[in-house]
């Protein structure tokens, strides 16, 4: 019996101690008519070896195409040490550190993580993670509404340059509580949000303004102006940022005169593999004055009976297991193990390592864009500064190009038609530090072949 240690002799002894005749007896409170008779659709058990074989086959089916898609999930080098340590049983198979004395390893690590995230974002407080960047944005919107007591209206300004799936997720989660999301168009030449497009909302009650940096197109938003504008309106500012980009870009805590109020994003680029979209984690940081509105767990440093330093979950009165219906969020299980990996990852990279990674991404993306736009009919859609993504327009249907390159084992980028039909045959491409010049050349060559250029 896989994963069950009982021998027949033990079962007999245990039943005797219970005073039952059979294991089935233990289920005698379940109405007989409800009991399962048999299963369909569950395959007979296989040994680890057989399952391993199946999974290897499935994995090989998907292969490892050369990937130039970003769009919220980025391929970075992850040091070998990261997951070797994160998957140590003591991290991997521990529960949430409710028993603090028996969980100092995880708790100290989270305290270190919180410190790192505060320093990256320039904020005062970090929580211990939310599910992912998209649902984290939803939580940030809800939190901003709680924190912005002066504004009763649940009205949120949401630039169209925010990741479409983040917008969809925020909507799905905040809908029931009656939030209104006002979409703000981007400028068609820079792909960024212009202050002018906000003018219409001046003087209105706005709970929060969401500012993506870099935005979905990889373009850099005028964060200082946007932040100052929002604060002038009495709105809180929610920054949605790529944490690797923060090695280069101004920390949200320094945006404008007062800095962003809440910062969130996806921690995936900091040590989580692409892994079909998860597990990643949502990070969230805020200013000190909003800490009691923060969703999710927070670790604090304290002392023990003898005055020795130790770490523990704190401000639990915000959480569902204490405050129940009045909690700041329903979140319980978060993304702890990914945070563990990420903390190790950040320690290994350090600020200088992260800066080099970010710089290499930037240079690689420039290289690709320069090479692609030298092909006849291919052009860059937006001008202005960006990070490691860019939108290019193709002279052929993007979907066909993607298909053709996929057959050549290249993921060419994301087709933007579904989300931004106005952009035409536009492709969102991304190049991280993992791509060599040869990789970039291969993409360019294959694209030329596909375009017949």
């Amino acid at each position, binding site marked *: 019996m896989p994963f069950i240690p009982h021998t027949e002799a033990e079962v007999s002894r245990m039943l005797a101690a*219970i005073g039952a005749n059979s294991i089935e007896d233990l289920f005698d409170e379940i109405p007989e008519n409800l*009991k399962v008779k048999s299963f369909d659709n569950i395959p007979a058990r296989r040994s680890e070896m057989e399952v391993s074989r199946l999974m290897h086959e499935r994995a090989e089916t998907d292969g490892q195409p050369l990937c130039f898609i970003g769009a919220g999930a980025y391929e970075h080098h992850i040091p070998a040490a990261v997951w070797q340590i994160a998957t140590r049983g003591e991290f991997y198979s521990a529960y949430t550190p409710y028993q603090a*004395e028996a969980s100092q390893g995880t708790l100290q690590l989270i305290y270190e993580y919180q410190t790192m995230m505060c320093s990256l974002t320039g904020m005062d407080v970090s929580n211990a993670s939310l599910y992912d960047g998209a649902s984290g944005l939803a939580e940030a919107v809800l939190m901003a509404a709680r924190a912005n007591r002066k504004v009763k209206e649940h009205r949120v300004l949401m630039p169209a340059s925010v990741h479409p799936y983040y917008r969809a997720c925020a909507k799905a989660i905040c809908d029931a509580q009656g939030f209104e999301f006002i979409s703000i168009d981007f400028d068609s030449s820079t792909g960024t949000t212009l202050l002018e497009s906000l003018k219409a909302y001046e003087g209105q009650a706005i709970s929060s303004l969401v500012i993506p940096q870099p935005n979905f197109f990889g373009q850099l938003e005028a964060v200082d102006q946007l932040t100052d504008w929002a604060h002038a309106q009495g709105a809180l500012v929610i920054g949605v940022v790529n944490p690797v980009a923060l090695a280069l870009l101004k*920390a949200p805590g320094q945006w404008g005169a007062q800095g962003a109020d809440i910062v969130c994003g996806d921690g995936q680029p900091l040590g989580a593999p692409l892994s079909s979209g998860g597990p990643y984690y949502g990070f969230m940081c805020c200013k000190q004055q909003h800490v009691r509105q923060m969703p999710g767990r927070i670790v604090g440093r304290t002392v023990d009976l003898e005055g020795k330093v130790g770490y523990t979950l704190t401000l639990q009165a915000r959480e569902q297991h204490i405050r129940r219906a009045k909690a700041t969020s*329903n979140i*319980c299980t978060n993304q702890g193990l990914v945070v563990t990996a990420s903390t190790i990852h950040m320690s290994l*990279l*350090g600020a200088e390592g992260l800066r080099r990674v970010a710089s290499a991404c930037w240079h690689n993306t420039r290289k690709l864009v320069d090479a692609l736009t030298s092909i006849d009919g291919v052009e860059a859609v937006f001008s202005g500064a960006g990070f490691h993504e860019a939108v290019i327009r193709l002279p052929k249907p993007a979907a066909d190009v993607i298909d053709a390159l996929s057959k050549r084992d290249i993921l060419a980028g994301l087709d933007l038609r579904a989300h931004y039909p106005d952009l035409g045959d536009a492709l969102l491409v991304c190049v991280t530090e993992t791509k060599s010049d040869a990789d970039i050349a291969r993409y360019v060559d294959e694209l030329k072949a596909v375009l017949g250029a």
Partner: protein
Amino acid sequence: MSEALIFELSSPGRRAAAQAPVEAAAPTAIPAEFLRQDIPGLPEVSEMQVVRHYTRLSQKNFSIDTHFYPLGSCTMKYNPRACNTLAMLPEFLARHPLATQDHSQGYLACMYDLQEILKSVTGMKGVSLTPMAGAQGEFAGVAMIRAYHLSRGDTERTEILVPDAAHGTNPATAIQCGCTVREIPTDKNGDVDLEALEAALGPKTAGIMLTNPSTLGVFERKIEIIAKKVHEAGGLLYYDGANLNAILGKVRPGDMGFDVIHMNLHKTFSTPHGGGGPGSGAVGVSERLRPFMPIPVVGKDGDQYRWLDENDLPQSIGRLSAFMGNAGVLLRAYVYALMLGPDGMTRVAEFATLNANYLMARLKDKGFDLAFDGRRATHEFIVTLKKQKQELEFTATDMAKRLLDYGYHAPTIYFPLLVPECLLIEPTESEDQATLDAFVEAMVAIWDEAKADIDKVKGAPYTQPVRRLDDVRAARQLDLRWTG
């Protein structure tokens, strides 16, 4: 020995140089206004310092791989290492969530199969794997219930009934879904108070959230009546699947009459808890809720798998994550399910229940009081230390902390809230009899210690990296990040 913070190991200019590009010039074309002037305060340490620091920190944790962990409601059972290995095959790790369909067939096949397995094991008609933990599964469930009522023009149904024993995520979720919460009391046998339920039902009832077996560690025997009454009142039934381990292969939520259920795959399907997560809160639905499932879901056209999105499910409650939830967790659950097979699933419930009933019988025999004596334990049960508290001020916390010294993780304490000084004990099916026996001896020994010297027990733990921590100070003098 206490471990310095990683920042205290830092030295200006130190680097783990193998871990970043050997050279990298600064970007040339980003205007200064966008750039940061300061250097983020990440630690400056060598690779070995990082490895040593986090290896040492890891040793300061209790975990399934090192300790018996009878944490009620959490199902701390063995996490097979193959699940980890196979979910981390290089192709799976490298797969971009937006990869083309022809580079996704292997992964999608796994997800499709998992959906089928979960449908089969729960008796539901549709499964969406996207919720990222139990609480998000609850959100999806209640949101679907709301969407269902709204789709029928039934706009007044905004009240969610929740038994007082329910997990905190239940009421918190209802609120997050824009509903109101009405608590239903529990009777002295641990069952839902039927009269109170009936009184609460009405035209505002959106639905009820139930855990069965309940968080009191007993099976709700009147579930069929409850289902009938709620349905008659126009409400739907939500099943909090945190306790699915107790009934896997024995009885199916779909057959009990539930309309929607979330499963904590990180419990029943043995994906690891990871020191707090990630988990997965896959949801299963009855026929009438199928149109509302959160997207994406995996579908099959001929022999091609593909994502179903808002075009396929226009009434969907929408997207709950950027991509499709905790994919890597789902792969682990899938591997586990394949290694169990149908018989193995049934055995999970059988042996989890056997272990709980055995442990309960033994503790009772040693004089501990059960919260619901006379009832069968399910996969867990509750001991109350009310008597011990009265006698010697010996609390559930004291028992918990002292157990750590004996090498056992504490059971869940003070949950559910309605049982005083409660210990919610869930041994799971992976533990053997000898471990349970040793645990009984430890509880007996601790109570003996308390009788001999209560102060000693109140000073516990003694063998952990720290003694009992000052939580009040932690909350009052907030120290949430290192500032040097």
